[in-house]
């Protein structure tokens, strides 16, 4: 049980998807001004990430590798995660009208988010450690947690910085990117923890 927990923490904190592996930076970089949309998209992407990477991993083990079609994994993974994202986005559009209206295309783009696809690619390429299914779920859950944590963190920083009078050259995105950079420095400090 403890190695599952350490796998999750490792994926969430030590090699965090956004700050250390620099995947999904594009999704994080469009800092939305209000925290609520940031939380929504963070949770949505986390769910999509967990589901798609587990399904991709199963596909990889039981269909692609027996048939020797490993080289097709990129197309398959992107296909599966974007279908999944569109299905979930459809559900969100039905029940959560306001959330859907706040970011009309944000939910659909979550499917082709480089973090989502990146995690499934990484899982399938590391052969020895992720043989059993539970580890895959743990790693993808960890990276989903890490991604959501960074997105919500930067959203809260955006709210905090919206009331600071930074010089004009650093007004919005420069200050946010500096903050992300410094935070990434601290995540690097966790290297070698697990």
């Amino acid at each position: 049980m403890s190695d599952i927990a350490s796998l999750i923490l490792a994926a969430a904190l030590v090699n965090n998807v956004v700050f250390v592996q620099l995947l999904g930076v594009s999704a994080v970089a469009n800092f939305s001004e209000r925290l609520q949309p940031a939380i929504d998209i963070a949770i949505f992407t986390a769910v999509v990430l967990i589901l798609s990477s587990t399904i991709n991993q199963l596909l990889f083990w039981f269909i692609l590798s027996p048939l020797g079609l490993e080289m097709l994994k990129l197309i398959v993974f992107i296909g599966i995660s974007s279908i999944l994202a569109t299905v979930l986005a459809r559900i969100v559009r039905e029940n959560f009208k306001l959330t859907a209206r706040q970011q009309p295309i944000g939910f659909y783009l979550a499917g082709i988010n480089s973090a989502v696809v990146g995690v499934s690619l990484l899982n399938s390429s590391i052969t020895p450690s992720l043989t059993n299914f539970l580890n895959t779920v743990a790693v993808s859950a960890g990276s989903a947690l890490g991604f959501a944590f960074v997105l919500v963190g930067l959203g809260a920083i955006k709210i905090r910085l919206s009331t600071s009078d930074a010089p004009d050259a650093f007004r919005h995105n420069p200050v946010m990117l500096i903050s992300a950079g410094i935070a990434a420095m601290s995540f690097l400090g966790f290297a070698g923890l697990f």
Partner: protein
Amino acid sequence: METPFVSTIFTVILFIGIALVFCLYALAVAYNSLKQRRVQDQIFVDKINQLLPQTQCGQCGYEGCEPYAQAISQGEAVNQCPPGGMATLVKLTTLLNDQVKPLNPAHGQFEVFKVAVIREDECIGCVKCIKACPVDAILGGPKLMHTVIEAECTGCDLCVDPCPVDCIDMVPVTAAESPAWALPSALPDDLNNFPNNVERQA
């Protein structure tokens, strides 16, 4: 791990306990917020409609605020409402997290709230303005003198053109504004930081 020291077991239990309580709390909060954010069609339109100024003037191209709210929920732009002015624009942009766009000049400018006043002696009692008023603010019967109930009039000036003798004119409302404290130092004007400086930015 060698034979666990008693304090190690204690801390592990402590941490698992804290983690469990935290997860339960987080789940409850998530479920509660999901329930609140589950917004169906009609509630969504009402939520938007609440922010519009309700002058029912039709300057946005729709014949009332409710239809305009309906259109916004379908994706219509948010900056079509001159009477709402900056206040409505800021509120709608905050609610719908839209891109910040300045007020659409095509729909006319808006300076101050006006109230319709009928010059009673010229009124011939043709009832046309009563039919045109969206909020029933005009009092009077056929062939009888009409007058506008000032408290109810929204200043939408829909009654001005149907009047054959043109005896309605719009008088600006002069609110007795009492002197108020100014902000000692708001964020300098050159700032266009979101989400709250939509006003300055638009």
